[in-house]
């Protein structure tokens, strides 16, 4: 039997639910030499800001049990360079809809960045990262307050007609209230979740491993927490969810989808295994067969 791996996000059909997460795949150039990128469902490109950014000082990376911490700090060449250079290059090696991940440090920056990248033809979904420091709101992250998350959602929705997914931070007490605020503000979907704030200390040198002291914890270790948040939000919202956080196997993809995800992003696993997404896609039909799943999309949200 032919297993149907296709899924749908806001009317856009993906051949399969597997999407490399933003920041773990660059703009595809390096990975295009590793395998044929067209096997992927989509790609969420490296987080893009209005201005070019170098990011944080090094060390930016720390090893953890079943995961890692990064404090890259949104290094990217800026939205103009992404549109002029990175996207045309990606077009040569990837011929499917892409997800443009954008970040900002003010509401205006989000909306200007979104308005620009909205014009790129191959961008079919805009993913808005709201876990960056909010210079307008006493240093709190946009994604940790329902009001500010909703304000960003409204600002980007005003400048694009493409589906907008808000990528939420897990570093909150009540993810459901923030998810609901985004949905009410017009978000077309949600990506759940970004990295968890973490820290490591070099006990020999008696200083933090990461130059920025803290960073985002990701990898297999965070899977149960991400899954729980996907489930909670799926129970409370009607818009589609892209599940993200610690996904490393085809079984993880199925589990995320059962919890309520319509598609799934693979992040840190790409850094330790460059073939991670390719292997998951290869395994998915076998796992579906074993579990008696004919159409993958049918399992989204079956856990009530």
């Amino acid at each position, binding site marked *: 039997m032919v297993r149907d791996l296709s899924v749908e996000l806001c009317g856009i059909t993906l051949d399969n639910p597997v999407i490399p997460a933003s920041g773990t795949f660059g703009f595809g150039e*390096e990975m295009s030499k590793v395998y044929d990128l067209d096997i992927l469902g989509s790609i969420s490109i490296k987080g893009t800001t209005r201005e070019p950014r170098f990011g944080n000082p090094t060390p930016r*990376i720390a090893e953890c049990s079943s995961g890692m911490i990064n404090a890259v700090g949104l290094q990217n060449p800026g939205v103009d360079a992404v549109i002029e250079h990175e996207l045309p290059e990606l077009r040569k090696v990837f011929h499917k809809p892409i997800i443009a991940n954008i970040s900002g440090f003010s509401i205006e920056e989000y909306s200007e960045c979104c308005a620009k990248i909205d014009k790129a033809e191959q961008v079919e979904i805009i993913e808005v990262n709201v876990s960056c420091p909010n210079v307008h709101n006493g240093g709190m992250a946009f994604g940790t307050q329902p009001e500010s998350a909703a304000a960003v959602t409204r600002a980007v929705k005003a400048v694009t007609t493409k589906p907008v997914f808000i990528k939420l931070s897990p570093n909150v007490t009540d993810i459901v209230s923030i998810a609901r605020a985004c949905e009410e503000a017009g978000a077309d979907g949600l990506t759940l979740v970004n990295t968890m704030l973490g820290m490591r200390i070099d006990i020999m040198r008696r200083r933090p491993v990461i130059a920025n002291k803290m960073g985002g914890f990701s990898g297999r270790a965070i899977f149960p927490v991400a899954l729980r948040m996907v489930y909670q939000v799926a129970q409370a919202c009607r818009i589609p969810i892209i599940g993200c956080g610690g996904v490393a196997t085809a079984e993880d993809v199925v589990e995320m989808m059962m919890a309520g995800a319509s598609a799934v992003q693979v992040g840190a696993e790409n850094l330790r295994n*460059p073939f991670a997404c390719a292997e998951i896609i290869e395994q998915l039909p076998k796992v579906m067969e074993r579990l008696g799943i004919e159409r993958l999309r049918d399992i989204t949200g079956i856990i009530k």
Partner: protein
Amino acid sequence: MKRVILEVASNRPLTPLVYEMQLTGDTSAVTRPGGFVEISLDGLFLRRPISVCDFDDGRLTLVYKIVGKGTEQMAGLQVGTKIDVLTGLGNGFDTTLCHSHALLVGGGVGVPPLYRLTRNLIAEGKQVSVVLGFNTQAEIFYADEFRKVGAEVIVATADGSQGIKGFVTDAIRQTGIDFDYFYACGPLPMLKALSEATDKPGELSLEERMGCGFGICMGCSIQTASGAKRVCKEGPVFKKEDIIW
């Protein structure tokens, strides 16, 4: 970049903390001196980047220092163990930049990548002088290996227990080696002192904590005179004039 399964053919200590590991298998992606590989180890999330000391058809030599859990586990790998390795990473040294006489400077565990570089330079008919810096006599390794392949070798120890007492820059000054290009790998303070001590051009291999090792995560980025560069992808070897100290 190529992912291969390599077999441990030997794994022996050269000093109490520095080990030499020989691996056999498909080494076809390793083509230039100064590159590195990334080793997947049980129970560790990220791979460990290790510079390539030498390579031949089907054989890879790594010389590494025990500095943490990853390298500690490597030191315990038995002959016959099969390991998952990403090969052919990093840019490597450019031997064509040296015309006739190269100065190679290695500090501590920065010494290994200079070994294959020496072999290549000598094969190209160039004269090679190698200055190796260590803290103390007990930490010295590979000095004889460099001599055996035809390099002039000068050893410096910080405590003076063998060779010239002092740093590599002291040894270079005292011996007055006449070179047209230098290649260096070692701790940042050594690389900086060396760059300031000579007007000659050179290439330096840098080290940085890495996430992926193949250019996708931006974990090891540095600012250079020609913009942001990834140590794992555009590096680890950079031209002297590109480095912002």
